[in-house]
């Protein structure tokens, strides 16, 4: 029984055929699996191995090296807060403690309602000009204040399940923040 949908499998095959060597498609394929399952399950990785003519352990060895792949299911949304220098100089610690209080779980945890998994990261996100900064579902949110964080989380929580990453959501957040003068 495949755990990957025909669409995901087709995407992996499409990735495989883009490169001079099939193995180059490991990272894009793992992204496709995570997109479908929300994390990398052993079964999902085994299917990647089968489609790329590798062994499951070869795929797992690669997956475990990279910090953006999840090895367990998490919340519906993922929040990543930078605590590297430029963000720390402009108040990242305050954002972190605000998130911890507001979401009610420590970094790396998932909220009781399963909506958010959040973590702080020492990896600079490349948004130091808008520090302090975070990413919500891979999308940048910058110049954070506790009030802005609240507004963003509210809006993300209210988004329909069908469209967690949609551009219209980010647009709504931007409009809301502008209206609130934040």
């Amino acid at each position, binding site marked *: 029984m495949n755990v990957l949908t025909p669409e995901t499998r087709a995407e992996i095959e499409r990735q495989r055929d*883009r*490169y*001079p*060597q099939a*193995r*180059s*498609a*490991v*990272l*894009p394929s*793992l*992204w496709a699996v995570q997109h479908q399952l929300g994390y990398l399950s052993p079964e999902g990785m085994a299917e990647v191995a089968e489609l*790329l003519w590798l062994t499951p352990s070869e795929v797992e*060895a*690669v997956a475990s*090296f*990279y*910090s*953006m*792949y999840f090895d367990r299911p998490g919340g519906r949304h993922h929040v*990543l807060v930078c*605590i*590297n*220098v*430029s963000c*720390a*100089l*402009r*108040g990242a*610690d*305050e954002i972190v403690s605000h998130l911890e209080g507001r979401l009610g779980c420590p970094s790396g945890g998932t909220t009781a309602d399963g909506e958010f998994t959040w973590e702080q990261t*020492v*990896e*600079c*996100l*490349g*948004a*130091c*000009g*808008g*520090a302090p900064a975070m*990413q919500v579902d*891979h*999308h*940048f949110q910058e110049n954070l*204040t506790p009030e802005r964080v609240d507004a963003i989380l509210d809006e993300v929580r209210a988004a329909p399940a069908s469209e967690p990453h949609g551009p219209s959501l980010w647009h709504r957040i931007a409009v809301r923040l502008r209206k609130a003068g934040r």
Partner: protein
Amino acid sequence: MAEYRLLTKDFGTDGLQTIDVYERCGGYEGLRKALRSLTPDEVVSEVKTSGVRGRGGAGFPTGMKWSFLPKDVHPRYLCVNADESEPGCFKDRALIDENPHQLIEGTLIAAYAIQAPIAFIYIRGEYHDQRLLLERCVEEARAAGYIGRGILGSDFSCDVIVHGGAGAYICGEETALIDSLEGLRGQPRLKPPFPAVKGLYGKPTVVNNVETLSNLPHIVLRGGAWFASVGTEKSTGTRLFCCSGHINRPGTYEVALGTPIRELLEEECRGVWKGRSLKAFQPGGGSMQVLLPEHLDLPLDMDVVAKAGSALGAGAMVFMDETTCMVDVSMRLVDFYQHESCGKCAPCREGTYFEADLMHRLERGELTTAELTTLSDICDNMNGKCFCPLGDTATWFVMSAYQAFHDEFEEHCGAGGCPVKRRNRELVPAAGGDRG
């Protein structure tokens, strides 16, 4: 104004991310000129004349790098390094967000110069929206005949593949990038052989930074000699400096090389925030050594800044005001390197672990003065002894900060807390955080 807009000249133009608007701004004329009137060797020689040096960190002359490719060995590959993960660095993101086609045009010019049939753009996983943008732009360029078979009626064919990373700073190192692109754990390879000789899939490969390549359309259109007339003799052209930290206007600013650092700080960044004074700054990103207010009059010139004991590196300027705790800053950077160490060599894998442990205890005021010597010893055992520069650079900021702020480090020993933060709280009793 200190700004000199070359790569950023069209930034902010409505719709610049679409091919129509980019072409209306003169886009793809450089590629057209290269394909119609220059041989690949002539492009290489024009780039050599320009004197442009790599913007990814090491500052190696681009034209010279290309000429290391062995003659008549094919296929060759071009890798665009968009892994930008240096702490403090966000210029490549700006170049992609604001003008993605400029990068694609530069990529195609470089691919033509080195005769690469495929160019890979390796973009860090966190730049998810930027990857989607680039993928869309590549399709636009393909539809317009700039990518694919027989580009613009010439006999040059090239495909461009956008490849997303998945969270690993080390994949910015060129050989680790190649490993990652081959579908492996991204760990650096032994050099030599250099990628120019044996790189991606064992073939000759050039790795160039996003900003380096974004210069190419301008070099081809306006000539290498013109480009060399901007900047200083050995640091030609402009650079995008990513300015962050305790300043009034953070952001990326493009200035001609040779501009004094003070001008960048005062005119573009509008000075240090809250009327405070500058304590220290980092001129090249998290990897580079700390500089002091007395260095503000240095020109932004790669060799001059190197002589002062630091480097322009990837062009990230992090400014710190008088309230900054240098131990705290060092601790965060050490945490970063510990997290990002790929684990391949012992001095880096173990050394960053010890460094982080010591720095955390120092910041908490729990370290003894004797243990502070251990910190120096560990750094000594790492610097120059690691497999790749990641482990070396994991010591540079800490050691330079320890030297320049010796008393502050000592003061932390046995202090039972951070003495700098304690002082700050007494200075500003009411304010909790330190936001602008």
